[in-house]
């Protein structure tokens, strides 16, 4: 145990280097996925039939195929049609597109949980449809979505490990290097597992704090009514 902790201490700078990349991948994927997901959710609910079809197609394709396949298609496949992305850009793109499809469905669920009545009430005082969505529907839907959505940063953080397969220098890639150098795969991967675990625990706390922070007195009761 002592030995393992010493080992962990020595290799920590390498891991932290990888962790930085992992966190970057998570953050960019999450933000890109949020923007895409919000657009797709709104498009699917409020869009014209044509827009709806595009949004559904996006969601189904990216939820229906493995992230790894998407990543390989972007990194290895696109150069075939003349578009080349760097390793990092490919990873950002794959994670963002993939996460967006999942986030779209979380968001769609919460937007639809805000009753049709709120839209009617907004329109009744002269707000446009867009203004009602922006000022009435979304502020409520984004609060409602937090508990379900808080899965997404955690899943995404762990999904970033696939970037290892196109040699993005993330935590997993560093782990592989360390394991090969030290001939201690068990110690190495245990250490990496612990690092992922700590980050996930921190993320969970952040989510809980966020939920508390934006809580509206009475709103959660209201939404629990049938």
């Amino acid at each position, binding site marked *: 145990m002592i030995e393992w902790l010493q080992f962990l201490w020595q290799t920590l700078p390498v891991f932290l280097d990888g962790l930085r990349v992992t966190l970057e991948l998570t953050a960019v994927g999450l933000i890109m996925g949020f923007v895409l997901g919000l657009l797709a959710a709104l498009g699917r609910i409020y869009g014209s039939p044509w827009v709806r079809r595009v949004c559904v197609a996006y969601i189904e394709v990216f939820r229906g195929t493995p992230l790894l396949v998407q990543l390989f298609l972007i990194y290895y496949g696109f150069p075939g049609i003349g578009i080349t992305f760097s390793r990092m850009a490919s990873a950002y793109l794959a994670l963002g597109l993939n996460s967006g499809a999942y986030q779209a469905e979380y968001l769609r669920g919460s937007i639809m949980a805000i009753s049709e*009545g709120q839209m009617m009430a907004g329109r009744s005082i002269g707000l446009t449809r867009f203004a009602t969505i922006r000022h009435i529907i979304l502020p409520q839907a984004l*609060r409602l979505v937090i508990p379900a959505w808080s899965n997404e940063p955690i899943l995404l953080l762990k999904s970033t490990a696939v970037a290892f397969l196109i040699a993005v220098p993330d935590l997993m890639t560093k782990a592989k290097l360390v394991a090969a150098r030290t001939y201690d795969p068990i110690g190495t991967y245990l250490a990496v597992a612990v690092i992922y675990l700590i980050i996930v625990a921190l993320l969970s706390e952040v989510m809980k704090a966020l939920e508390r922070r934006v809580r*509206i007195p009475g709103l959660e009761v209201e939404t629990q009514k049938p």
Partner: protein
Amino acid sequence: MDEPILKAQGLTKKYGENVVFKDIDLAVQQGDIIVIIGPSGTGKSTLLRCLNLLTKADGGKIWLDGEEITAPGHNEDEVRQHIGMVFQNFLLFNHLTALDNVMLGLTKVKHLPREQALEKALSELKRVGLADRAGHYPGQLSGGQQQRVAIARALAMDPRVMLFDEPTSALDPELIGEVLEVMRQLALQKMTMLVVTHEMGFAREVANRIIFMEKGSIIEEGTPDELFLRPKFERTREFLWKITELYGHKHETTQPTEDL
């Protein structure tokens, strides 16, 4: 007679084969307090929603202050600012305090400066007796208080006419009074109102015209005296008898001879 504030002609609404109402003619004059009564499912609520364009009518025309608002290309959002609406289930914006509920239309629709909007919103809350609840969220208010905030929210836009869609039907009996009281005050202030309700006491006392609707048509309309004391149709008499009995008021006519 002056130009009506709100006028509808030949208004018709269908959902597929199902006709909600057909060929409704209606004229609301300045200062009118019109109560629409009738059995449930006769299209009263849908009629109100059609009048402020929340639901699209399938036929007929609507005019607001002489301007046809059902004309193609007319700005619906602009129209709704001038027609206040109060819903059966309040529909306050649940994420906003009472004050912000009332302010939202002022800042986001009328684009008033914040201070002016705040002052106006506070005065509207005062008007419905809830200035001391300005910082409360809807979830912290009773049903009656929520409905009064909803009335203040509609009033803040300075509407030409207020539509009330069964404003007390979702309330516990002991909360109905406070909402009706606010509506009575509005009537005294000469607010033009179109009210769908089963509160016969309110209709009798406050309305200057009552419209009896059934199965998507206007059966009879007239002053409260005309309808309560001398209904032209047996069906009107029968409905009023039943509803008066149900709500525990004193009967003013003899019992209808038979059930139709």
